[in-house]
């Protein structure tokens, strides 16, 4: 069983690719391949620069470790230096509203606190290439406003964005290219309007 086949594409600095397709069409798999999490069975992926992915935020949280330790570990894993991590530490604490809790193990946090920490860390270290599975929004109403703003600047700072989403508006807003995956193959690769219209037409039961 192949999740993806004959998928060839090249992205250069400034490219923002939106991926659309039905559930099971291979969107997340393609993101994971691009992010270097799984190697392709055939073919190759070449990339230059720091890649980060926001595919599953909760993976890799060390619940025994404190909030501060998690900031350090995640930061190092993102390719940040000690100095960069220390520069970001206060900002992460302030954004996640967890000052005073960061010396406690993450296992003592509520689900909401964990999510705020994961989100704050994941969006603190700017990568060159960002693989994003749906737009992230989290927390209560006031926190969500903050996350939307932070997400915006985080996404804008990456030189290449790959965003898989079911939301046409999101792709129109953020992307200058779009890819339509169908059963693991490229159905269409073009500008966002063309792809999204074709995809919408196909899905329309009244057509």
């Amino acid at each position, binding site marked *: 069983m192949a999740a993806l086949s004959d998928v060839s594409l090249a992205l250069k600095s400034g490219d923002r690719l939106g991926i659309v397709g039905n559930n099971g069409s291979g969107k997340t798999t393609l993101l994971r391949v691009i992010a270097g999490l799984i190697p392709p069975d055939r073919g190759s992926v*070449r990339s230059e620069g720091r890649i980060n992915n926001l595919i599953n935020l909760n993976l890799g949280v060390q619940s025994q*470790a404190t909030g501060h330790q998690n900031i350090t570990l995640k930061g190092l894993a993102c390719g940040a230096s*000690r100095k960069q991590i220390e520069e970001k530490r206060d900002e992460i604490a302030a954004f996640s509203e967890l000052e005073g809790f960061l010396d406690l193990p993450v296992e003592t946090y509520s689900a909401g606190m964990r999510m705020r920490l994961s989100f704050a860390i994941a969006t603190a270290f700017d990568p060159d290439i960002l693989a994003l599975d749906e737009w992230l929004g989290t927390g209560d109403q006031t926190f969500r406003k903050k996350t939307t703003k932070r997400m915006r600047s985080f996404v804008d700072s990456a030189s290449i964005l790959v965003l898989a989403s079911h939301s046409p508006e999101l792709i129109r807003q953020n992307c200058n290219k779009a890819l339509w995956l169908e059963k693991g193959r490229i159905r269409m690769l073009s500008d966002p309007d063309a792809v999204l219209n074709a995809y919408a037409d196909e899905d329309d039961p009244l057509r």
Partner: protein
Amino acid sequence: MGSASDRLPRKDRSDIQRMIADIVDGAGKLEIWGTFAWDEIQNRYRRSVFGLAWIGLSFILFVAAISIFFGAFAELDSGAFVSYVAIGFAAYQFLIANVVDGCHVFARAAGWVKSSNLPYSVYVYKGVSRALFPFFIHLFIALLILPFFGWRPNGNALFAIPALLLFTLTAVPLQFLLGLLAARWRDVGHLVQAISRIFFFTSPVLWVYAETTGIRRDLADFNPMTHFIAILRDPLLGVSPSAYHWGLSLSWLVCISIVAVLVGGAMRRRLPFWV
């Protein structure tokens, strides 16, 4: 080149080359696995009154109990037997920790394996350094208390240094290999758990290698731990290093490394689907 691309395959690389690149790239990320390992060590002993001292306390308790009980069965005099047990047990503990923990090295890092593009060997180096930490504490305590039991090291003791190097070098491919196998086949973890008890009794910790004969000697020689323990313990006890034990230990290192690279080449790319 950025760290993120390290694990990305290149057309001109074979699976074996990628496995070797994984091991080499991971070693360079000392800051990451060092921090990981240190955090794990701290977290393990957090909220206990004696904290890290437990590493030393449990070692002293064991050596004391074994020396009192089993000392009577050995022909060595009681002071020499304490030294024999203390160093042998420290070596055995390190070796078996790598075997047992090696089976979980990737399973325990599942979240990271699935979500990060770090070389997989980062988790192996983390595991090995986490095992080295109590090992060095045990050795340090042994060297501290053994003079009271008549231990007088001589120049041969310097040969313990290359032995420690060999221990560490063997631990890396061993953990990588067992980690992959146990991630693919969960039975491997259970099997190793069962075998580890046998290892303890067939390794020269409770009994003296030089006093064994016949089938007991054959079994001891068949057990790779025997040779590793010997190359560390013999020089510390003043015996000149034996070519026999060194030769076998080095052969084991070569065998484990070759198997690890071959198995890693074949299995490594599937790891995120198994953990």
